[in-house]
């Protein structure tokens, strides 16, 4: 079904890091191929968070005690680490609940800039356009639908082709001189497509539009330098990069963040408050309302240390090979259609398929019974699936701890699915 893979090139040291992940050891019979949904956490991350909670935990940025000082320092050190990891300055990183929240901070901020702010340069006017692609995750679509509804702006999109990918030409065709913002995923969570970020950033510049990069599937897997990419905003999540749930980050160019009104308000965001009015601190504090995910930030800092320890280049090379194995494994199976770039083309280690005659839920259930844990459903990308003429698909995704053997098991089990459900007759 598939030829012997070039396993020699795979970085086996990386997959040996499996030992750091207790959850992998806990399920020896299971191949966890759902890291694009959420990654497992290594002991180093869990230990760092726990040590912090047991030694240095206290309120952050509130009060002046020694305890507060130690906690605040740990919290801000984590911000520096994460900022450095993505090529940003520390005050360009805002903590959020998750990547979805980060995108909403921008969408809600632009709503307020358009409706209640006085003379904001960021205001959208009726007829202005927000540009996305048909392949976006709901997290990078619904907030823009709401922004459009609140401001009278119009949503436009680059369509996807029969394989589910969009092109820069398609994006250009959908753009106009009313385009104010282009929001797009760096790496698609369904097709594995890697977007031509530089081209999009240039298109945006030529139109005077802002850009927002959904970096959920790139920051954990590739070396990403947001400053060098030239995007205005970016969003990513801790839990997809070996860190805790409950924390994500918004990146924004300092000048834009400081111009964006905070739509979610509360303690620690202000300098002066009266009963009727408030003055807000500069970014990032103006957006960090209430007690922040403090120990989660420390955990995310440790995750970044862990990733840096291996090196993002190395992780990316490993996953590129796994991506090759995954597409090969899938390509040979009759009745299984590969979504996204064809075998051999660049892609992330995210491979979704449609199995002829078998619903994705049933495919997933069968794979589960063979110890292969994949994701089934629309992966929060209904418009993309609709364009492909299906409601759901089956997705396997890899991370640094994924082994070629796991990919083998996925391929072998997938090859049996149609026979089990009688779809091969």
């Amino acid at each position, binding site marked *: 079904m598939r030829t012997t893979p070039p396993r020699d090139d795979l970085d086996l040291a990386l997959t040996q890091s499996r030992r750091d992940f207790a959850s992998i050891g806990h399920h020896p019979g299971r191949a966890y191929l759902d890291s694009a949904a959420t990654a497992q956490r290594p002991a180093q991350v869990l230990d760092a968070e726990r040590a912090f909670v047991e030694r240095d935990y206290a309120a952050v940025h509130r009060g002046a005690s020694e305890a507060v000082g130690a906690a605040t320092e740990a919290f801000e050190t984590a911000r520096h680490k994460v900022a450095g990891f993505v090529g940003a300055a520390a005050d360009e990183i805002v903590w959020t609940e998750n990547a979805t929240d980060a995108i909403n901070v921008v969408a809600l901020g632009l709503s307020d800039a358009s409706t209640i702010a006085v003379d904001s340069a960021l205001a959208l006017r009726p007829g202005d356009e927000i540009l996305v692609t048909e392949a976006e995750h709901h997290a990078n679509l619904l907030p823009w639908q709401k922004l459009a509804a609140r401001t009278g702006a119009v949503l436009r999109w680059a369509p996807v082709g029969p394989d589910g990918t969009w092109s820069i030409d398609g994006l250009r065709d959908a753009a106009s001189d009313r385009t104010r913002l282009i929001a797009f995923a760096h790496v698609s969570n369904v097709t594995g497509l890697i977007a031509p970020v530089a081209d999009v950033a240039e298109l945006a510049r030529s139109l005077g539009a802002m850009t927002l990069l959904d970096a959920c599937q790139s920051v954990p897997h590739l070396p990403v330098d947001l400053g060098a990419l030239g995007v205005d905003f970016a969003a990513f999540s801790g839990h997809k990069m070996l860190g805790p749930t409950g924390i994500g980050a918004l990146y924004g160019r300092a000048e834009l963040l400081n111009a964006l009104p905070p739509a979610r308000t509360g303690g620690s965001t202000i300098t002066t408050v009266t009963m009727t009015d408030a003055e807000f601190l500069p970014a990032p504090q103006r957006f960090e309302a209430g007690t922040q995910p403090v120990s989660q930030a420390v955990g995310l800092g440790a995750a970044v240390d862990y990733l840096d320890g291996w090196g993002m280049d190395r992780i990316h090379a490993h996953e590129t090979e796994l991506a090759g194995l995954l597409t090969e494994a899938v390509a040979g199976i009759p009745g299984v259609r590969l979504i996204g770039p064809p075998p051999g083309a660049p892609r992330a280690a995210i491979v979704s398929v449609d199995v002829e005659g078998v*619903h*994705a*839920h049933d495919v997933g259930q069968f794979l589960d*019974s063979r110890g292969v844990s994949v994701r*089934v459903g629309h992966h929060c990308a209904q418009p993309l*699936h609709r364009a492909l003429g299906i*409601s*759901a698909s089956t997705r396997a995704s890899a991370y640094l701890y994924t082994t070629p053997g796991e990919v083998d098991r996925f391929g072998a089990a997938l090859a049996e699915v149609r026979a089990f*459900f*009688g779809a091969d007759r």
Partner: protein
Amino acid sequence: MSDLEGLYQEVILDHARRKIGQGDAASFVHQHTEVSPTCGDRMTIGVAVGDDGTISLAWEGQGCSISTASASVMSELLEGSTAEHAHESIDAFRSMMRSRGAEEAPEFLGDAEVFQGVSKYVMRVKCAMLPWVALEAALGQAG
């Protein structure tokens, strides 16, 4: 019997193919569409209550083998029954599906008893419930 075969019993795979009751739901007086949030599948149930209090129904939509088989089994079981009995059956089915394999089906659920195996798979309970929930809502409109 392996886990998988406990879930996909012959009766279920068979009903998933036969699709009893699949039809033009839109032509019925009362209709309700229910959506499965994970896969986005929609199922519409159409129902009419006759003068004698018995119901006739049809369903429409695509789904996995569990939701399709469930719709088929349900149609076979409830076509021509009273609305009251349909409500009782929906309640009994829900109760069984929430039991995580602990609760046996009452006799009047007939073939629907095979879904007891599905109730152990928390993420598939919604698939099996889809047609029953839609029927409940459609019957609700009938008053």
